[in-house]
């Protein structure tokens, strides 16, 4: 039976950004990706908070990289989507697409 706890908007965006970035998905590029598409500043702290929430739900997994000098000797934390995460992204897309399809076009403009 499919899980009915659908993803929140921000969580879905983060999962899509992680999917898009592949092996290079850590805090900085994820935040930049979100900023680029949303067109406004993103708090890196809120990105990490959402990623931790997703990790506790088993939708993403993380691993520490090597510390680098340009980061003051601090390691990067890489994220990758899990099978369950991918399943939930697909499920959310299916539901959203169905809802959009059923929406009648507004007068004089397409949605």
């Amino acid at each position, binding site marked *: 039976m499919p899980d009915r706890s659908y993803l929140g908007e921000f969580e879905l965006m983060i999962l899509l950004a992680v999917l898009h970035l592949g092996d290079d998905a*850590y*805090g*900085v590029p994820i*935040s930049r990706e979100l900023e680029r598409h949303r067109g406004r*500043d993103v*708090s*890196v*702290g*809120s990105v*990490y*908070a959402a990623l*931790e929430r997703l990790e506790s739900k088993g939708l993403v997994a993380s691993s*520490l990289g090597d*510390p*680098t000098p*340009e*980061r*003051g000797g*601090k*390691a*990067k*934390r890489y994220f990758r989507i899990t099978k369950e995460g991918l399943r939930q992204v697909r499920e959310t897309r299916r539901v959203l697409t169905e809802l959009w399809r059923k929406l009648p076009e507004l007068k004089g403009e397409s949605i």
Partner: protein
Amino acid sequence: MKPTAPPRIATWLLEHSTPGPRNEALAGDLLEEFRQGRSAAWYWRQVLAAIAIACFRETLDRRTMLLFAVLWSILAPGWDLLIENVEHNPALFGPMWTLAWPWSTFAALGLSLLIGGAFIWTGVLVYLLLYGAMTLSFSLRGLRRTLALSLSAFIAISAAMFALTLLLPVTTQAMNGLGLNAFITPSAPKYEKQKNIYRVYRFTRQIDPQTGKSVVVRALVDIDSNDFYPPPPAPAPPTPLSEIKNTNTRAIVARLPYFLSMIYALWGLSRLEKRRRTMA
């Protein structure tokens, strides 16, 4: 020329207020972004947002504990009244009140702190029984540490609050039973402001006109003139239940050391457990 190091205070705040491995990765990310051209204002904004999020999450994670600490500290004035009755029981602590100064003060202070500590310890144990035992497993060492920490926190917070209330104007202290007046029992003198004259009810010795004998009566004394007034109708004596329901300033101030000590003790306990679970 743009500085290569981000604001030091912001970095210090970030490192000391966001827990765990997330802290390191987040700090590294912010530093990387700063070195790639972000401004100091951007860095500050990110740090403050990260701290706010961390505080919110920590509070949310511990909402049951916070609620329990609020409820338990509401009971504190009732406990204080019960204890006061026990302390003044001549059969139990009679010899303590006859000690010479300063031993009597030390003994009374020590007893009050010990009894206050016992209330907090009981609270910690009740919390563990009601909630903690179901969700967390505690080591005996962790529990001992928590109990010791809660007692030291209670002593420190009580002393700090006492010192703070002494900074208030004397009349404010008197009106609210704070500062040195905190030692006045809820059933003893009450200060009232009548026509800008502060009056205090005291127990005093007077000659009974009918019998001619010296008796102890409760009388109203004008602080300024030291005149005695006819005794006002005695208020209903406080009960532990009425003290629990009490929301005046004295009762709220009396609850604060208990509340803060409970939070301190239980916060430390959940942090220990969190660390243990992370390591496991």
